[in-house]
């Protein structure tokens, strides 16, 4: 099925906002910045089966920046892995929907939240896929702040050393973290050169919230299979993308409040009504 990715991404954005608004507070900025890559992955690139979330040979996705769970859940529910109603018990006690990614939720391939770990798990999956020879591609999404964790670079070295060219990673390079800008706190630049130096193919996407650019980058990354190198796609994104007042919050968008009124206004803008 061919989806209108731009329209799908709008629906997912609205669901992310609605789901977090149910709680009243959450990781809005870093959830909204990755909606477009999630859209491209789940509605175009990935071989998955919502009716059989554990289908052997499926492609895998690990959201290593586990706090963006609301974006992953909204995407999975849109794709048909579970009912949309489930988005509205986010962080409710006993509901089994923690906002940090949890693999007990249909379609979530790995639990994540302690930064740096999900990426290593994805590397393990890529190794597993190669050993099983199931032809799957393993995708991982890293935060830029998360990339300050030493474990990320342990994994980067290992994946290149083991020639895991069935692994495609993304960096959500929105350049903001909880306490300030990435440049101020502990700069990652030059990020692409770092990954290249670690033995990875690197693709830089100037507009990391543009589904067409992301789609082209994923096709290019997939074509790298056989190169003997994993691929890092650096997505230059905007934290809070799609909602002006959240983008305007800058650093404060990492975790912020949203009320019903703000939600309605944001949805109206996204839907263009």
């Amino acid at each position: 099925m061919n989806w209108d990715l731009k329209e799908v991404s709008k629906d997912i954005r609205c669901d992310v906002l609605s789901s977090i608004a149910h709680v009243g507070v959450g990781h809005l900025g870093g959830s909204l910045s990755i909606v477009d890559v999630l859209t491209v992955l789940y509605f175009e690139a990935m071989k998955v089966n919502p009716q059989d979330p554990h289908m052997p040979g499926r492609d895998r996705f690990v959201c290593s920046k586990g706090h963006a769970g609301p974006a992953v859940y909204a995407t999975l529910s849109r794709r048909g892995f579970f009912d949309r109603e489930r988005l509205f018990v986010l962080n409710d006690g006993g509901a089994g929907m923690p906002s940090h990614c949890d693999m007990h939720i249909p379609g979530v391939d790995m639990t994540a939240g302690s930064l740096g770990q999900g990426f290593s798990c994805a590397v393990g999956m890529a190794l597993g896929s190669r050993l099983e020879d199931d032809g799957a591609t393993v995708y991982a999404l890293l935060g830029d702040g998360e990339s300050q964790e030493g474990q990320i670079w342990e994994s980067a070295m290992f994946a290149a050393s083991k020639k895991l060219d069935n692994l495609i990673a993304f960096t959500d390079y929105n350049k903001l973290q909880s306490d300030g800008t990435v440049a101020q706190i502990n700069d990652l630049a030059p990020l692409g050169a770092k990954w290249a130096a670690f033995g990875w193919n690197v693709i830089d996407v100037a507009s990391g919230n543009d589904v067409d650019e992301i789609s082209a980058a994923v096709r290019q990354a997939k074509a790298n299979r056989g190169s003997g190198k994993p691929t890092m796609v650096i997505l230059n994104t905007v934290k809070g993308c799609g909602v002006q007042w959240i983008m305007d919050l800058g650093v404060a968008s990492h975790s912020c409040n949203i009320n019903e009124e703000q939600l309605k206004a944001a949805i109206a803008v996204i839907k263009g009504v």
Partner: protein
Amino acid sequence: MEMRAVYAACLAEMMEKDPHVVVLDADLSGSHGTKKLYERFPNQAFNCGIAEQNMACVAAGLSTYGFKPWIESFTPFTTRRICDQIAISVCYADQNVKIVGSDPGITAQLNGGTHMSMEDIGVLRSIPNIVIVEPADTVQLRAAMEALDAYEHPAYLRLFRKELPVLFDENTYKFDLFKVDTMREGSDLTIFVSGFMTKDALDAAEILSKEGISCEVVNVHTIKPIDREGVIRAARKTGAVLDLDNHNVIGGLHSAVLEVLAAEKIPCSVVGVQDRFGEVGKLPYLREVMGMRLEDIVEAARKAVSLK
């Protein structure tokens, strides 16, 4: 035969039988006797280099793919160094990862204080969803590894690497992962022990028997989940307890036993590491400075009985 030789042989058998059993190293395969597995099973042995955090999570990722990874290194590097990876990616995510820590407690000897983990059991015991096993000899080690292979959840194997006296009869030994092994019946004092000190417990019991003190020696190979029923039954039988703990007396076997016996009015003593770091030296020296020699155990046993 050295414990590591049996460990490696047992791993090899499991890998031969099941291509999903894999071993991961952090540049210490040579120390664990597993180096030869790399040639024999090139698709089941992976050296992660000196990067234990990545190793633990790669193992978790492999487990999500149906593999059964065993990760190994010296005790401090597979426990305290990667505590969070074990807690979240292995235990919280309930992945079938077997964690092997070798040279526990004072047995790190010449590697000294930096390589001595006196807290590994305490650290891991406070994480839910992990089984902790410390074998006392090669027979128990083999039985434990087979049981852990069949147990498809997180587990920690605390492994003494060198040679140990064989205490169990391989022809008759029946291992139950979740039950203690009573190795000697007694009526005056119950000694709880795991790992290499098990031989000391038996030797102490023999010495004490000549003084008219009858010791029950109970091997607690599985420290978590501890066999509550077995511990309580053995403690009540004699009315006095001595724990032998190659670990800080805070958090290890002794603590586990105390937690079980908290409601019992039974005096509990301990021979173990008294909340201090390790230091370099050979085992006789370390036993002496830590108060963990056979004579220390015998003396502690006499005192323990007098507390009744």
